[in-house]
């Protein structure tokens, strides 16, 4: 999972649904710990502006 930093508004909705606490807010940026991530895709679904996707952003 990666977050498109230019789109992300750090609204943190993704943090609330992550079942393994893999997303943290650090210095006004949402960061996904891909070691912890189980790729369930909940963050992708819930992001209000669809700023998260599988793999790497172009």
């Amino acid at each position: 999972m990666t977050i498109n930093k230019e789109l992300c508004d750090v609204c943190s909705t993704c943090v609330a649904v992550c079942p393994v606490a893999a997303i943290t807010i650090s210095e006004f940026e949402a960061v996904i710990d891909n070691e912890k991530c189980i790729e369930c895709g909940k963050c992708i679904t819930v992001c209000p502006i669809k700023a998260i996707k599988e793999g790497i952003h172009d």
Partner: protein
Amino acid sequence: MIEDRYDVVVIGAGPAGSVAARFAAEKGASVLILERDREPGIPVRCAEGVSHDGIAPFIKIDKRWIATKIKTAGLHAPNGKKAVMYNNGDGYVLERRIFDTELCNIACQKGATLLTKADAVGLVWENSKIVGVKYRHLNQKKVVRCSLVIGADGVESQVGQWAGIDTSVKLRDIDTCVQYTLTNIEIEDTERCEFYFGTKIAPGGYIWIFPKSNNTANVGIGIAGNLAKEKGPKEYLDDFLNEYYPKASINYMVYGGVPTSDTLNEIVKDNLMLVGDAARQVNPITGGGIVQGMIAGSIAGKVAAEAFQKKDFSKKFLNKYSKEWNKKLGYKQKTMYRMKDKFMGMDDNRFNNLVEICQKIPKDKFNLRILFQEVIKGDPKMMLEIAKAFVISNVKK
């Protein structure tokens, strides 16, 4: 001057955190509030609607933080039909920037200290006990020691996670939201909030229009997380805007999530309490959380003050907060949560029916009891579903 040690550290200067800080400080506990942003209340991440009765116990009503006074609600069915009803008492659309600052000022006048631009990054543990908070302030790493941490850090709460509480909510129990503050629009009645329902308009949620003046309004949407896979809330809201307000100027844009779950199972630990959105203390049907957070904050603050007097910050003692919350609103939230499930399952015909039923009730006579009576007459099946939700939640209590 920031000390190295406080009795209580509150993380987050929103309504829940500030009210908790106030009630703890009032009884003599030393309290530090850490706020990540540069001042309380910004950025505004809220539709800003509250009821008078909800906020009046906590703050003297002041027109400085009231944008508009609200008297009625307009319900719009998927088929375009509309019912207008009086609210249970007056409401307000707030200016959260000013309102949140004022709530925090009250806490500080009672003895609490606010530190802004202070981003909590972790807890300090000693012998498996929470003894403080790590935070960053103006690019420096700092530590403050304390006997009690109150996590009021909102929907994205990390404090709970740090303490080992599972704070994650199911997709169907979070609304994914987008809100625009629009200007250059015509508000027909500044005393009315509008709500639009329908599976094509806002699946599992609704679109709201909360007027801030006669030409400005918070216009937003929340849709159920599990129904947002194909099309996100921004696309739904933009479709709505194109239809209703094609000439509007979008002067403010905010994204966010609103928990629509039950309260977390665990809201206290040794030396720690969670309040507000962080504890998922939100009305699951409306998504309103300001008043819920303030009530939870007041209970938590009072229990914190007692814990300080008794020098007992154990989970066992702090559990008093959890129990009182359940008595005051927690059980009610459970019932609302079960009812939300029923509303989410409603198709457009049901919504059309419901609005039609509401139309039959004279708007000054409107209350929930009369609504239920009319629903029994007009849509007995719906009533049965709602009744089931009540019974199940009351048995489970």
